[in-house]
């Protein structure tokens, strides 16, 4: 089940993910931040593959890396001198945020240390693409349609909001 090669890949992906997330939250150059954000999303996609969720890995790469990163990149290029706002973060604010985050991390880690999950003994899953496709078109069709409507509404809303200021 847990081969060493799998563990090895896990730790490599985790290292890439943590490093690129660190660059995203603490880097000063906006352009580099976005590229490392893309790398972070790719590492998450790798984790999905490792968890045998191949359909989700593809959705992650197409939807996130292909869609959202490019969109953010476009917005950064549409707005000038965007890197200047990044220049200074007050150091006291950074320290307070660091300790709040550290407290949160320790608390949640403690919570799932004391929790016992009812773990399955061994797992043999069928192909996730087939199963998800069947579920989306039979038992879960209403959420699927609602998601489609939400996406349509988001497109229309985004267009109207972005056009508003131009005239």
């Amino acid at each position, binding site marked *: *089940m*847990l081969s060493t090669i799998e563990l090895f890949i*896990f730790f490599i992906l985790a290292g890439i*993910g*943590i490093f690129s*997330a660190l660059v*995203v*939250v*603490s880097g000063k150059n*906006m352009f580099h*931040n*976005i590229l490392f*954000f893309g790398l*972070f*999303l790719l590492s*998450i996609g790798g*984790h*999905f593959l490792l*968890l*045998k*969720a191949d359909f*989700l890995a593809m*959705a*992650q790469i197409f*939807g*996130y890396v292909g*869609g*959202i990163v490019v*969109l953010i990149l476009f917005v950064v290029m*549409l*707005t000038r001198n965007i890197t200047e*706002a990044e*220049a200074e*973060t007050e150091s006291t*604010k950074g320290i307070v*945020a660091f300790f*709040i*985050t*550290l407290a949160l*991390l320790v608390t949640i880690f403690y919570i*799932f240390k004391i929790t016992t999950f*009812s773990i*399955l*003994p061994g*797992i043999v*899953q069928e192909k996730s693409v087939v*199963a*998800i496709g069947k*579920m*989306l078109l039979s038992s*879960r069709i209403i*959420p699927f349609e609602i*998601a489609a409507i*939400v*996406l349509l*509404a988001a497109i229309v809303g*985004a*267009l109207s*909001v972005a056009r508003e*200021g131009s005239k």
Partner: protein
Amino acid sequence: MIINSIQLNLYLTLGLIFFCLGIYGVLTKRNLIGVLMSIEIIFNAANLNLIAFSRFIKANFDGQLFSLFVIAIVAAETVVALAIIIAVYKKKDTLDTGKLNLLKW
């Protein structure tokens, strides 16, 4: 069984680290787009947890389906947020969160 538990704990810890990095980014970023990217990191941490649970706790595909919907909603949210960012930039000519006080009175 033990091995699955170790693996689940590894994924939960990784998701927790990503979540906390995202929270730190939201608290310290001075740039609206940076805040947006930090929020995306938080969403990804949640997705990772959902898929790890769907693999190790319950062997059906509800967790994967859930995170598929999360991806769809995040896409919608990002598009609207970027449109708002463009509108704000047109109006105020800055994206510094310290200088934006349109809704403050």
